[in-house]
C-alpha cells in the first residue's frame, strides 16, 4: 500500500512541480495586473476545456513524444542529442520531397514511404554526429548544435529554391514554402479535429521503444554502454558502435516527428527562416518531455501530454488575457526548472525504499557520466 502510494506520488511529482511553478507565475501575473485565476482558467480551458482543446493538446504532444522517444534512447546510451531541431527539419524535408514527387502512387504507400524517409533522414542527421563522436572524438553537443544551424540554412535554401511551391515561384510574394501535399497523402484525422493518426503512431512506437530498450540485446547494450562504458568494453561490447546507434535512432525519431508534422498537420513545409518556426521548438521541448517522463518511453506519453497541454494552454491564456507572449516563455522555463528540481524528492524516496526493501532492479539514473574512449585518456 505504502509503495503504491509512493509510486503515485512519484508519478504526480512533475504535476505538483508544474503547479508550484504556476504559483510563481501567478505572482508575476498579479504584478502585470492580470487575475491569475482567470488566466489559469483560460489555460485549463485551452488545454483540456473541450474536445477540440484536448485534441490540440494531443496534436502538440505528438512531435514532443516522438522526439522524447529518441531522447530516451540516446540519453540512456549516454549521448546528449540536442540536435532534434535539425533532425526534424531534415526528416521533414526529405519526407515532403517524397510526398511531392510520387504523386501518382497510392496514398497509403506514399505515406508509409514518406514517414520511413523522414525516419531515415533524421537517422542520417543524427548518425553523422554519432560517427563524428565515435571515430573523431567530436563532442555531440558541439556537432548537434552546429548541425541544427546547417539544417535550417539547408531548409531555407531548398524552400526558396529547388523545392519552392510552383505557384509561389510565379508570384511576387515568393513565399518560401513547398507545394501542398495532395489530399490522399494526408495522415488520417481521428476525430473531427486536427488530431491525426500520427498520435497513434507515436504511442505505438513508445511501446516499441520500451521493448527495444528492455527486451532486446541492442537495447540492453545501449543502456549498458550508457551506464558504464568501461565495463561494457570489457564485456566485449563495441562501445562506439552503440553510441552511433543511440544517436542515429534518436535522430530517426526526431526525423519522423518532422515528417509527421508535415503529413499530419501542415501538409507542406514553410520556413520563416528559423528552426522553431517549423518545429515549434519540439526538438528541444522533446528533451524536456523525456526527462519529465524519467527517460522511460511509456512515462513519456503522459509527460508529453502534460508539456503539450502547457504550451497549448499558455497560448490560450495569452489570447484571453492579452499578457505578453514572453510571459508564456517565462512560465515554460519555470516549469522546466521546477520539475527537474523536484526529481530530488523522487530519488530520495527511492533510496529510502531501497534501504528498507534491499536492493532491487532500478532503472538507470537519468544522469550518467560522459562516455569516453579508453584510449582517449592518453
Amino acid at each position: 500500500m505504502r509503495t503504491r502510494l509512493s509510486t503515485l506520488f512519484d508519478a504526480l511529482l512533475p504535476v505538483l512541480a508544474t503547479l508550484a511553478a504556476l504559483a510563481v507565475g501567478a505572482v508575476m501575473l498579479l504584478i502585470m495586473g492580470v487575475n491569475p485565476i482567470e488566466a489559469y482558467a483560460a489555460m485549463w480551458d485551452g488545454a483540456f476545456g473541450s474536445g477540440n482543446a484536448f485534441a490540440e493538446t494531443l496534436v502538440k504532444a505528438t512531435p514532443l513524444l516522438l522526439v522524447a522517444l529518441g531522447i530516451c534512447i540516446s540519453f540512456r546510451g549516454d549521448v546528449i542529442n540536442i540536435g532534434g531541431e535539425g533532425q526534424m527539419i531534415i526528416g521533414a524535408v526529405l519526407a515532403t520531397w517524397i510526398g511531392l514527387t510520387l504523386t501518382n502512387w497510392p496514398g497509403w504507400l506514399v505515406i508509409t514511404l514518406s514517414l520511413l524517409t523522414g525516419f531515415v533522414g533524421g537517422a542520417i542527421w543524427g548518425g553523422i554526429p554519432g560517427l563524428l563522436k565515435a571515430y573523431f572524438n567530436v563532442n555531440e553537443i558541439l556537432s548537434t548544435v552546429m548541425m541544427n544551424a546547417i539544417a535550417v540554412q539547408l531548409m531555407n535554401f531548398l524552400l526558396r529554391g529547388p523545392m519552392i511551391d510552383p505557384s509561389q515561384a510565379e508570384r511576387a510574394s515568393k513565399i518560401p514554402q513547398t507545394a501542398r501535399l495532395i489530399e490522399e497523402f494526408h495522415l488520417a484525422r481521428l476525430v473531427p479535429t486536427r488530431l491525426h493518426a500520427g498520435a497513434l503512431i507515436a504511442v505505438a512506437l513508445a511501446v516499441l521503444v520500451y521493448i527495444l530498450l528492455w527486451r532486446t540485446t541492442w537495447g540492453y547494450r545501449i543502456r549498458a554502454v550508457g551506464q558504464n562504458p568501461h565495463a561494457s568494453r570489457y564485456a566485449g561490447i563495441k562501445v562506439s558502435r552503440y553510441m552511433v546507434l543511440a544517436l542515429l535512432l534518436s535522430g530517426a525519431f526526431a526525423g519522423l516527428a518532422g515528417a509527421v508534422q508535415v503529413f499530419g498537420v501542415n501538409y507542406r513545409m514553410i520556413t520563416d527562416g528559423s528552426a522553431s518556426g517549423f518545429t515549434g521548438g519540439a526538438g528541444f521541448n522533446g528533451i524536456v518531455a523525456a526527462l519529465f517522463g524519467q527517460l522511460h518511453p511509456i512515462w513519456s506519453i503522459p509527460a508529453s501530454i502534460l508539456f503539450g497541454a502547457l504550451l497549448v494552454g499558455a497560448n490560450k491564456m495569452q489570447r484571453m488575457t492579452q499578457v505578453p507572449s514572453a510571459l508564456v516563455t517565462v512560465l515554460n522555463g519555470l516549469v522546466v526548472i521546477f520539475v527537474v528540481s523536484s526529481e530530488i524528492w523522487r530519488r530520495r524516496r527511492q533510496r529510502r525504499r531501497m534501504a528498507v526493501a534491499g536492493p532491487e532492479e532500478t532503472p538507470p539514473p537519468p544522469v550518467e557520466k560522459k562516455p569516453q574512449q579508453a584510449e582517449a585518456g592518453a
Partner: protein
Amino acid sequence: MKKIYWLVSLIVVLSMVLSACGGQATQAPEKKFRVAVVMPSAINDLAFSQSMYDALVRIQKEMGGPDKFEFVYSENMFVVDDAAAAIRDYATQGYDLVIAHGSQYGSSLQEIAPDFPKTSFAWGTTADTFGQPNIFAYEAASQEGGYVNGVLAATLSTSDVIGVVGPIETGDAKLYVDGFKAGVLATKPNATVNVNYIGSFSDTALAAEAANTHIAAGADVLTGTAQMVVGAIGKAQEANALWFGTQSNQSSLAPKIVVASQVYHWEVALREIISLIKAGTLGGKSFTANLANGGEVIEFNPDYTLSADAKALADKTIQGIKDGSITITLP
C-alpha cells in the same frame, strides 16, 4: 494538521475558480468592430509586425476609440502551428475580422477559413485569396518604395558603393531589395550594390557586422529589411553612412543618418476591408499597398536635411511610380 490546511486551501482555490467562471457574465456588447491579429514577431520590432500594429492603432483612432473598434493580438507567433491554433481560436470567439499577418500562415488559413464561413479573414503578404469567399489578401509593392529609396541612395552616395542587409533571400525582403537595386542602377548605372543576406531574422549581431562589412567595402549608404537590421543601423551611424529604412519608420533609431523610410500603411487596405465586411462582403479580394493608393508612404526624416534637388528627385520618382511613367523591372 497539514492535511486540513491543504484541504482548506483547495476548497478556497476551487471556490475562487468557480466564482471567477460565474462572474464572467457577458454584458451585452454594443455593436463594435472586433479584430484579432496574429503576428510573427513583436509589436515593437520597428519592422513588419509593428507596421500592422501601428496601422490598427490608427484605425482605432479613426473609428472612435476602443468602444467602436477593439483589437487583440498574439505577437511572436513564429511557430506556424501555434499561429494556426490562435487563428482558429479567434475565429471561434466571433471576431469580425481575423488577420493572419505573415505569409507563412496562408496554408493554415486555407484550411481554417472554410470552417468559419461567417468570419472574415485577411492574410498577407500575398495576393492569393485561395478563391475563398471569406479571405482577403494584402501585400505591399515593396519594390516601389525600394526603388525610391534606391534612387535617393544613388544620388546621395559619393563612393557609389551601396550596401544592403537582408534576412533570407525571399518574400517581401527580396522584393524590396530587388526594387532598391533597380532604383540605384536606374540612377547610376555604374554604382555597385552589395547585398548581404544573413540567413536570419533575429541575428542582430551578424546584421551589424554585415553593415560593418559593407562600410569596409566602401559603402557610404546602407539599407536593410526585417527586424534584425536595428543592429546595422547603429553601425551605419558610427561610420556616418546614410540609412534607408523600410516596413516601419526607423528614424528614431539614428536621427542623424536615416534619410527616409518606406512605411507600410496597412490601414489603407484595412479601411476597405472593414467597409466591405460591414457591407456584407467577407473576402475574395486582394489589396496591394503601393505608393499610388497611400498604402506605402515614403516618410522623410525631418531631422535629416535633404537637399532640395534630392527631395525634388524623390518626389518626381514617387510621382512617376504613381502615374505609371516609371516601371520597375525586377529580375
